[in-house]
């Protein structure tokens, strides 16, 4: 599911160049700011997202000398920094999931391309999903959302968070078990008519 990094100049090359020519780091911003904004906005909403994207890049810039050049792709590194910063906003994030549980439809930002049927089934389970997300321990939620919303692979999540891949697997397993346990009654009751 994870798309490979864009062809052309590798991130590793850009970061190395920025050591002598700091403004080259802006290329990394142009490439990934939009992607990070989308991910962060999903978790804490648009107000906090803008500043968090900026902080992520400022921290990345300050630590650019420590980038592991064994990997060409900077996305896991940036997501890792963003994840740490997001942990300071856990109250905002929790409030967001609570809001979905209270008023599942008002919070919806309609997405242009969703099929009608998808919308219906997804809407029916919104509160259950939000409930599962608020119940999950932060470390499990980080892994789950980096994969589902950040489109990272298991290996990339491991690199991102600096944990062994086995730990990513076990956290993901736990998180999905919680997710399914919250979904089950809903799926049986609500989503059945649209499932073929």
């Amino acid at each position, binding site marked *: 599911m994870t798309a490979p990094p*864009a062809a052309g100049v590798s991130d590793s090359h850009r970061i190395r160049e920025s050591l002598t020519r700091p403004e080259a780091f802006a290329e990394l*911003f142009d490439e990934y700011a939009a992607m990070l904004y*989308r991910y962060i*906005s999903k978790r804490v909403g648009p107000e906090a997202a803008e500043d968090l994207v900026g902080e992520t890049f400022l921290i990345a810039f300050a630590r650019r000398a420590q980038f592991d050049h064994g990997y060409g792709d900077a996305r896991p590194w940036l997501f890792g920094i963003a994840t740490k910063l997001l942990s300071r906003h856990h109250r905002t994030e929790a409030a967001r999931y609570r809001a979905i549980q209270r008023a599942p439809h008002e919070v919806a930002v309609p997405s242009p391309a969703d099929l009608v049927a998808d919308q219906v089934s*997804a809407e029916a389970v919104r509160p259950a999903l939000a409930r599962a997300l608020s119940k999950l321990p932060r470390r499990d939620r980080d892994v789950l959302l980096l*994969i589902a919303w950040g489109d990272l692979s298991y290996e990339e999540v491991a690199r991102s968070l600096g944990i062994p891949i086995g730990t990513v697997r076990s956290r993901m397993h736990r998180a999905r078990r919680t997710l399914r346990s919250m979904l089950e009654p809903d799926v049986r009751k609500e989503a059945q008519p649209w499932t073929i």
Partner: protein
Amino acid sequence: MDDLKLLRELGHTLEHEPPASLVRQRRRLLDAAAGKSGKSRGAWLKRRAGLWAVAAALGTAVVTAVVTVVPTLMFSGGSTSVSAPLGGDRPEKAPGALNVLLVGTDPGAGTQKPSPAESITLVHLPENREKPLLISVPLDLHVSQPECRSGSGAVSPPRTGMINAAFTAGGLPCLWRAVESITRVRIDHALELDYSAFRGVVDALGGVDITLPRAIDAPQVKLVLPAGEHRMNGEQALGYIRLRQEGGGSDAERVKRQQVLIRSLVARAKERILRPAQLTALVEGIREHVKTDSFDALVEVATSLADLEPKNIVSITLPWEPHPSEPGALIPSIKQMDELLAPLRGGRPASPLPTITITRKPQATTTITVRPEAPR
């Protein structure tokens, strides 16, 4: 349904598109890179080139406009259902230049009627037509809007609020008037187009040829295709330019895809131009999705833009600063805007600055964005 798939869909509905104001964070990074502390705004104009890069990366507005405008206007003719704003004191015209307001909408995107603008762009063609200037107007700009008569004849009273509210309340004529009043630049013509116009163009041309470097599996935009050569229909092509996850998920990638698509589309349009039956079908297919006061003037915009190398098109965002009391809202940055727009204005330069009324408690009742949590 799969639990992860459901979670991804929830993610899609919670996601927000990067706002134009994200450029401020890039500036923060550049300031840090230059060893500066704090925020400096003075060098705004000098950083125009950098801003252009961000506009290209974040604002698909321009590309979308060109995608639709170019093939549409290669065949002039169509309905002229919009009239220029009447009455009031309009800014004076700068001789020789042509200023056109482009508004993009995506009626399929939401339930709000009329659908809000997805992009507002002021296109300035100088007298020699050599270096067009594309000025993106941030959608969350908080401005005072003059009284205005909409297309249907209803009069909206003067008020203060998001610029997009001028559009949702009074359509193109009211937005036209609002943008003139903020920028004090005379706008000669306006064009409103929706994404469906693009679909109509592609279908009328019998599809567009695209080579996919790898398979696409994106049922959320109705696009599931193997790698290789394809002739996409309108629906597929629309999905292809809307697609976000492909190619690392960056908007820069989306812009690249759009550019490839434009080239292919323009090539196809040139092939097809000689067949009268298809031409008629094309004009008919587009007509309902495009509103303008003058197709002739827009042919000129389209050809001017299409003939130029992208590097000769300067694209910037209207200078803005954070609203002093309204979190998330922006207000025009008068001094920088005056510096930037002075060459575009006609007549005597001595007229007073426009009044931007800032109320502590804005009266606007139209809610544009739904904010799930209380502002910080």
